[in-house]
């Protein structure tokens, strides 16, 4: 198995915590992993992405070649489209629909959502809203990971274990809130993936 994943968002939105959980889950399953991050200047409110590759086989490149990503997970809707050149023909685009508007020429939301709807395999989820519903408003990231989880070749339980390891320092309550968010995202995707 292998999953090539592009994570995207805006600097400061915390896409790296998604990567950290998947990384832990990959280690638990004795998978190879490579994860290229963006540090430095772009972290200041600019467009950021991370290439995350997991596989049973040794992984060569830290970067995913164009047209080969299995999934794009985006915590911001416009940013999800920026990385379409990497998405494979059968790949899934899983994106949050809550926009992060810090530029003056941000596109019209209707037009933006219509572009996302054009893709044959997509999940568009209001992760911020769902996170609020499960009383975990700061865990929209984990909602997004949950929404993408049906398309990642890692047992769901391992993702929960990953959350446990990453957040255990912050106490059981935080761990549970994040697991609730993960679950809510997964349920949404299971209901909307066809």
């Amino acid at each position, binding site marked *: 198995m292998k999953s090539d994943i592009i994570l995207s968002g*805006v*600097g*400061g939105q915390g896409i790296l915590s998604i*990567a950290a959980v998947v*990384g*832990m889950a990959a*280690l638990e399953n004795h998978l*190879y*992993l*490579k*994860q*290229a*991050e*963006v*540090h*430095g*200047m*772009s*972290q*200041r*409110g*600019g*467009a950021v992405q991370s*290439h995350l590759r997991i596989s049973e*086989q*040794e*992984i*060569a*490149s*830290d*970067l*995913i*070649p*164009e*047209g*080969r*990503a299995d999934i794009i997970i985006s915590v911001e809707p*416009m*940013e999800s*489209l*920026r990385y*379409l*050149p*990497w*998405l*494979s023909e059968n790949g899934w685009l899983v994106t949050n629909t809550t926009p992060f508007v*810090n*530029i003056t*020429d*941000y*596109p*019209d939301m209707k*037009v*933006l959502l219509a*572009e996302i709807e054009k893709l044959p395999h997509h999940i568009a989820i209001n992760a911020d809203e769902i996170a609020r519903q499960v009383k975990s408003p700061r865990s929209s990231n984990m909602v997004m990971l949950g929404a993408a989880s049906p398309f990642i070749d890692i047992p769901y339980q391992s993702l929960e274990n990953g959350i446990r390891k990453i957040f255990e320092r*912050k*106490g059981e309550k935080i761990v549970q809130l994040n697991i609730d968010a993960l679950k809510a995202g997964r349920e949404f995707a299971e209901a909307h993936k066809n």
Partner: protein
Amino acid sequence: MEKLLLLGAEAIAQGAIDGGMSGVYAYPGTPSTEITEYVQHNKIAIERKLHSQWSANEKTAMEAGLGMSYAGKRAMVCMKHVGLNVAADAFINSAITGVNGGLIVAVADDPSMHSSQNEQDSRFFGKFAMIPILEPASQQEAYDMTYEAFELSEKLKVPIMMRITTRLSHSRAGIETRPLKQENNLKYPEDPIQFVLLPSNARKRYKGLLGLQSLMEQESERSSFNTYYPARNKSLGVIACGIAFNYLMENYPVRKFPHPVLQLGQYPLPFAKVEKIVNECDHILVLEDGYPFVEEMLIGYLDKNSKIKGRLNGAIPRDGELNPDIVAKALGKEVKFGMKVPAIVADRPPELCAGCSHRDIYNALNETMKEFGKQKVFSDIGCYTLGALPPWNSINSCVDMGASITMAKGAADAGVHPSIAVIGDSTFTHSGMTALLDCVYENTPVTVIISDNGTTGMTGGQASHATGRLEEICIGLGVKPEHVRTLTPLPKFHDEMVNVLREEMLYEGVSVVIPRRECIQTLARSKKVVKVKVEEAAQ
């Protein structure tokens, strides 16, 4: 054995700790910062009390590292590529003095300039200094090379350069570690004048360095990091340096190469291996991230119809970092194209954070400059460089650390008035203090705004040497105390800021204005830490 999931930068740090390092010296700079930060937080490093505090700049770091080596202990110095320019004097001469304890100079280059002002290739500096360079392809190699480099350094008695690029530095992978080595004991150099580069001794030392070159080449020749992969189809041979080897492997999974491949990870070039592949193949494709360093050496000056292909003949783009697609194309393989980016997707450049003090300073500066005219503001390297972009468009230069003040001085000497510098607190103590002294020496009419947010912000909020002592430094350098003005950059003090800036711009001498308010990123983090501690206490 359980693997550690580490960034390439962190793998270097772990390799150095396990290899018996006694101290790391560095100034933060993307993409090298995480090496030192890892040592600062590593359990063994803390237990062993390894030195890991930040240095004022890369030159002081290099010199301190050399001092630790003089005392017989193992040291590592880390910097980004342009930091090596700052450290160059000490770096080049450290090859002439040679080392006592093992010394590693880890330099992170930034091809494609993700977070830098140029994409210079540090391998030229390694060659310039005539020392071995190690260039890992993977995080595991980054670990292994660093682990072994101290011994190589002590064997050859010269510093070793570790050269990585952004992509490896900021990519995570599983690492297998090796047994923890003891630190060296304090031990003075056998020759008490080894480090005295008086001409008479320097000439001797330099001859010694020249004499070592063939030994370094022998090391490269038998290095396990320089691997020859034979193959039948000799119409092409590929030389892949450092991380470029990964992009080659991506195109030929599980190392099933149809053509002979020479993987290069240790320099100087292993002559016999290079000669073999060049002789037995019709064409050679050189894959290297950065400048055409190896390619140029192989072609030489006169051979314009060379069988060597790469960045110089257009097989690979002349600039920018490599990726699997560029390498596929150069190999003549089919490249897949994904979907196009929809036209509605707008650019999203980085920007100053909401609530950042630099915003208030630029608002005040822009209003003041309405009275004095455009293009008189020199700036520097840091978050505040983003003031060059809309909506501020406030600054007219960003060249190298500290250049704002000295460029403002030169412009003032040429008749620009007022001539203004905008520099951050950490950049000021890195390389701005001597520049300010130049201004004081001639009482040049410049207005230096030191935007003090109490941290090294752009690289993620490292401690700043300037914190708590900026006024004393400026006054100590000779700026008149009445022209060292401290402000609080907040919207409610806008008018006061404009008034102070105007007063100092009208003054015909050196003035320093210090708007001071904590970086909102470090502020948010310290609040979070306090919150977690309170919660932990409550449990």
